[in-house]
């Protein structure tokens, strides 16, 4: 069967999945009674509600044409997605062991690869400038306690 509006259909599937997740794991917790609600009560009700909404949206997506032109889901661009988020993950993983400067360089260089017009001549000055700015504002200015140098070099 052909989906009339794939955006809605997959939104519905996403809602059902989240609803299932929250209502399902709520079973581990105490339900309580209506007068004395346990920790499971509210999430169970909401989870079931979300599943119902999801089912409705998915059903509508199968049957009703989209109002805004084609209902297909636009292509996912994995290159910027992976490079931008990967850069952030790299920052998070590097910060403690390698210190702020290494983590910042990784973040800036990896993320700027995602633009498709990467020029090292441009990015290097940008990276150095941003490192200095961050040091000035956050470390010396606001006095945040972030390790600046790699762990083995810090005393």
């Amino acid at each position, binding site marked *: 069967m052909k989906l009339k509006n794939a955006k809605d259909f997959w939104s519905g599937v996403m*809602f059902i999945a989240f609803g299932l997740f929250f209502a399902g794991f709520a079973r581990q917790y105490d339900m309580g009674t209506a007068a004395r609600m346990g920790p499971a009560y509210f999430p169970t009700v909401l989870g079931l509600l979300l599943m119902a909404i999801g089912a409705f949206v998915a059903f509508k997506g199968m049957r009703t044409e989209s109002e805004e032109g084609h209902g297909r889901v636009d292509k996912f661009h994995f290159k910027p997605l992976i490079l931008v988020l990967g850069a952030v993950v790299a920052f998070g993983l590097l910060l403690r062991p390698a210190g702020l400067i290494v983590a910042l360089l990784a973040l800036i260089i990896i993320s700027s690869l995602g633009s498709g017009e990467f020029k090292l001549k441009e990015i290097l000055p940008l990276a150095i400038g941003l490192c200095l700015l961050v040091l000035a504002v956050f470390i010396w200015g606001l006095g945040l306690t*972030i390790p600046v140098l790699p762990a083995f070099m810090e005393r």
Partner: protein
Amino acid sequence: MDLINNLLLGFGTALTLTNLFYAFIGCMIGTLIGVLPGIGPIATLAMLLPMTYSLEPTSALIMLAGIYYGAQYGGSTTAILVNLPGESSSVVTCLDGYQMARRGRAGAALATAALGSFFAGTVGTLVLAALAAPMVELAFKFGPAEYFSLMVLGLIGAVVLASGSLIKAIGMIVLGLLLGLVGTDVNSGVSRYAFDIPELADGIGFVGVAMGVFGFAEIIANLEHGGEKRQVFTDKVGSLMPTWDEVKQASGAVLRGTGLGAVLGVLPGGGALLAAFAAYTVEKKLGGKNANPPFGQGNIRGVAAPESANNAGAQTSFIPMLTLGIPPNAVMALMIGAMTIHNIQPGPQVMTSNPTLFWGLIASMWIGNLMLVILNLPLIGMWVQLLKVPYRLLYPAILVFCAIGVYSINNNAFDVLMTAAFGALGYLFFKLRCEPAPLILGFILGPMMEENLRRAMLLSRGDPTVFFTRPLSLGLLIAAAALVVIVALPQISRKREEAFQEGD
């Protein structure tokens, strides 16, 4: 007069050197980021929130408010000069503002936007100050049942007045409510959905959610299109002075825009965006046919009305946030989050328990608006230069500030990774046309709603009819139901789509 005394107290707080300084910094940074296309006020606030942690709560909120209306202001500059809305409520300003710029009247358009916004901001602040005390009075009559019903109304109102699919927006609210429940349950001490990850026991940080879903997802979406070409009218901003004829036309539009914006800002789901749309539509209806030049071709009323409306709406949307502790839109949800981080329990008691904060914030809004006029008009050349920075250099810088901001909340790298995960989720939402703003609202209200539901049900001994037998609560629920019914009616839903289409 209480109002005068309160305002005096407020100005006393806001005019201290420290608070003036932070209001200035807030306006400055807000404008700076607002000018850059592609980052809205929500992402801006989420990104800069961590910078305010080390401040006094009053100074922090003053600075955040400054960032908010600064971003609002900066957005209009971009709209007029580049035809790219810096943030969503400037979409309407693009229509006539950019056309004015093309005809060499960019200066007049910018001046009108700035002065109109200042006037609207002044009125909005006065309305806020005058309504605050009666609203707080009303709020003290609310029991848990009323609070629960009010939140239902607020959430429903927020999606009804927003664009896009109604049912999907409700789904996003519920998802937000559920995400808000992650962490330790206050009543039983049970840790929910934390899966033995210690960082999750305190709940998901809302800064991470907002930054990931709005900030990161926006950046990825912007990069899809590759290098963009924009034409900036930088060389010929022209004279800042509007002609006498323009002044006459604009002043009526400013008055109407301000009135409309002030009313719409208070409504749940209202605020700047809706106000701007409505004001533009009203101007067009009022003798739009004979307008010279016609609307859409550079009529100054098309700049004056939405710009004053969005500023008035931005001010008055603080009313439900400050007096009831209930955010009418996603930006106010972030402000609530900021208050909680500073250990201020949002709600009607803020006015009595923290009067200097409450009135100081209100007074600082007027001062901030004044600063913005002073900042924007003479410094316009500087903001224009900023528009020439290519996006490929801009977004790594944005990411740097986001990453450090998230990390510094708890000095924890786990939060950075979680923000990246929400970035991926936000990109999925973008692809599926699921609006993220209702999710943020739900996320903030989730724990509050559960708490009030539990209390109401405990007091009624498990009888759910309590929500319908208490008159105030019933009235709020009827209003919520009426909103859904009205919007679901076929004629209205078609009109609603048209209204939102017009801005595209």
